[in-house]
C-alpha cells in the first residue's frame, strides 16, 4: 500500500533539506458575500448564501439562482485604489486589481523586486467583451488571456512576465500547485495567484445547454441535488519562501499538490473516481502524511449528480471517508477558474480560526460511501487540509495545506 510506503520519516527528511518551504500568506476574495475575507466568512459561518434567484434577461430568459457581484460595488472599490487617469479596466480586471492590491497591502512584498511572479487562473477571462450587445471601447486583443494578465501585471509594475493557467474548473488549484513548485525550485521567492471569472450569458447559456444548472440554489452531496449553481468572483493568494515577509502570525505551508486526468470523457466525470483518486494520492504522498492525518477536506462539490458521486468514490478510495468535508458551492456558486483560489482561501481561514463550516444546501446524504459531509458549524483544531477540484476535460487536482506547528 502506498500509505505505508511513504511514511514521513523516510521521505520528507530527505527532501526538506534540499527543498525550500512554501508559506501561504494573505488572501483576499471578492464574491457576492462581500469584498473582504471577514465579510465572506461571517456569511458562511452563519449559513447565509449568496445565491439569489436572478431575473436578468441579459443572462438568461428565465429567473435562475446565481451568485452575482454588484457592479456598482466593484466600481466603488476600484475607485478607492486607482486614480481616474489609469485604465480603463474591464469589470474582471478591476476585481483582480482590487484583490491583488489588498494582499500586497497585507504583506511585506514589493512586486517590483524581480523575484515575484503573478499567476492568473481563469477559464474565460474578459469574455463579456465578446458580446456584441455590450458596448465597450476595449481593443479586441483584450480577449486574449495573456493580454488580460499583462494589463494586471503592468498595473503593479511586476518585471517578470505573468503566467496564465486556463485549465477549466481546476485552474485555481493548479495555479497554487504550480506557484508552490516554482518557489520550491528557487525560480521565484513570491507568487501572487489570482483566480477570477465573471458570470456572463456566454457561460450561462453553455451550462444551460448542458442541462447542468439547478433551478434551486445547489445542494452539494445531497440526495435531492439536481445540478450546479453558477457564481463569479476573484480570489487572490500570496505564497512566499520567506515567512517573515508575509506578516502572518501563523505559519501554513503547502506540502503537496498534484493534477491528473481521468482519460475517460471530455465532459462527464469518471464513474470510478480514479483520476481524482490519483491526484489526491499523489498530493498526500508528497507530504509524507497518512490520509488519517488530514483534518478537513475542501471538496469541489458542484452538486451535479455525477461530480459529487465521483468525488465521494475517490475520497473513499483514498482512505479519507472519515475526514470532515464541505463544499462552498452552496454559498458562492461555482466560480469556475476562481473556485480553486477562493475555496482555498476559505480553507486557510478554517485552519487559522480552527472552524469548520457547514455545507449550504446539504440535508440528506446522497452519494455512495459514508463520507462525512459537514452539516453544522464546528470549532475544532484544523491543522491539515486537502483541497480538491475537478473539471471538464477530465482534469483533477489536489493540494495540501499544513500548519507548520501542529495545534492539539
Amino acid at each position, binding site marked *: 500500500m502506498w500509505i505505508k510506503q511513504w511514511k514521513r520519516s523516510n521521505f520528507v527528511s530527505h527532501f526538506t533539506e534540499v527543498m525550500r518551504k512554501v508559506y501561504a500568506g494573505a488572501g483576499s476574495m471578492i464574491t457576492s458575500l462581500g469584498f473582504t475575507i471577514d465579510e465572506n466568512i461571517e456569511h458562511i459561518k452563519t449559513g447565509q448564501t449568496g445565491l439569489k434567484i436572478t431575473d436578468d434577461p441579459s443572462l438568461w430568459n428565465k429567473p435562475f439562482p446565481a451568485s452575482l457581484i454588484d457592479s456598482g460595488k466593484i466600481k466603488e472599490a476600484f475607485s478607492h485604489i486607482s486614480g481616474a487617469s489609469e485604465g480603463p479596466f474591464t469589470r474582471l480586471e478591476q476585481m483582480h486589481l482590487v484583490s491583488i492590491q489588498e494582499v500586497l497591502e497585507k504583506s511585506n512584498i514589493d512586486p517590483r523586486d524581480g523575484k515575484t511572479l503573478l499567476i492568473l487562473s481563469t477559464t474565460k477571462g474578459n469574455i463579456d467583451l465578446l458580446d456584441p450587445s455590450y458596448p465597450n471601447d476595449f481593443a479586441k486583443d483584450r480577449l486574449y488571456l495573456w493580454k488580460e494578465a499583462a494589463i494586471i501585471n503592468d498595473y503593479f509594475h511586476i518585471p517578470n512576465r505573468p503566467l496564465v493557467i486556463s485549465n477549466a474548473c481546476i485552474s485555481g488549484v493548479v495555479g497554487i500547485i504550480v506557484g508552490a513548485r516554482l518557489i520550491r525550485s528557487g525560480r521565484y521567492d513570491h507568487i501572487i495567484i489570482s483566480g477570477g471569472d465573471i458570470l456572463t450569458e456566454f457561460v450561462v*447559456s453553455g451550462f444551460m445547454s448542458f442541462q447542468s444548472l439547478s433551478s434551486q440554489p445547489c445542494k452539494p452531496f445531497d440526495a435531492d441535488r439536481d445540478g450546479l449553481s453558477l457564481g463569479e468572483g476573484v480570489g487572490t493568494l500570496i505564497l512566499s519562501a520567506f515567512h517573515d515577509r508575509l506578516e502572518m502570525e501563523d505559519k501554513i505551508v503547502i506540502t503537496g499538490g498534484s493534477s491528473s*486526468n481521468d482519460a475517460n470523457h471530455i465532459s462527464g466525470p469518471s464513474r470510478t473516481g480514479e483520476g481524482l483518486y490519483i491526484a489526491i494520492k499523489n498530493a498526500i504522498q508528497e507530504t509524507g502524511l497518512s490520509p488519517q492525518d488530514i483534518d478537513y477536506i475542501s471538496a469541489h462539490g458542484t452538486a451535479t449528480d455525477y461530480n459529487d458521486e465521483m468525488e465521494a468514490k475517490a475520497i473513499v478510495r483514498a482512505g479519507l471517508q472519515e475526514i470532515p468535508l464541505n463544499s462552498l458551492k452552496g454559498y458562492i456558486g461555482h466560480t469556475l477558474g476562481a473556485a480553486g483560489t477562493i475555496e482555498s482561501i476559505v480553507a486557510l481561514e478554517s485552519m487559522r480560526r480552527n472552524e469548520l463550516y457547514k455545507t449550504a444546501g446539504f440535508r440528506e446524504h446522497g452519494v455512495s460511501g459514508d463520507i462525512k459531509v459537514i452539516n453544522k458549524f464546528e470549532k475544532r483544531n484544523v491543522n491539515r487540509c486537502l483541497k480538491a477540484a475537478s*473539471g471538464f476535460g477530465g482534469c483533477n487536482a489536489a493540494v495540501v495545506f499544513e500548519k507548520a506547528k501542529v495545534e492539539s
Partner: protein
Amino acid sequence: MTNAITTYCNIKDWLIKIDGQTDFSSDEKEFRKFIRAAYRNYKTGYPKFFKMDNLSKLGFLTADILIKRSGIADTYAGEEIGIILSNSSSSLDTDEKHQETINDKDNYFPSPSMFVYTLPNIMAGEISIRHKIKGENAVFIFERFNPEFLYSYITELMAGNKLKCCLGGWVDYYQDHYESFLFLVEQTETVKRGKKAGEYIIFAPKNLEKLFKG
C-alpha cells in the same frame, strides 16, 4: 538527472514534419480539409476526431502521431505520462462560434458539443482519453512560444519522480491561423538504453526554440 527530447512534430503551413523531416503535405489549403487529409494519411482511426473543434483536432493529431510512433503509451503507465500544453489564443476561435449561437434571441440555440470546446484544456483531455494518459496536465497561455518556461516546468515535474515522460509544446488555432509543435521528453538514462547518441536531443530551451521554428 537530465532529460531528452526523443521525438517531435510540427504542423504548420500545410506541412507535417516529424523530427524535422517533411512527412506529409497536402494541396488542401483549408484547415478543415487539410486536417481531414492528414487524419486519413496517418490512419488515425478515431471517429470522435470529427466531433472535435479545430484546436483539439490540431493538438490531437500532432500528439497521436508522436504517441503511436514512440509507443510511450505501452512503455509507461498512464500516471507516468504528463501533458503540458500552451498557446496564445486559448479557445477563442470556438468562443466566437459559441457566442454566435446566442447573439440572436430569435435563433438562440447554444450547442453543448460546441460549448465544451470553449476551454483550451479539452485538447489535453482528448489526447488523454485516446491514449489513457493520466498524469500531471496543465494548459498555459502565453503571448508567444515560451521555451524557458516549458523547459523549467517540465524539468521540475520530471525531477519530482512523478513523471517519466511528458508530452509538451504549443498548439494554437485562431481563424484559420494554426501552428502546432509537440515533443516528447523522457529521462536520458532510460533513453540511452534504447537509443544511440544522435537519436535524441538534449532537453534545453535553446533546442526547443530551434525545433519550434521547424
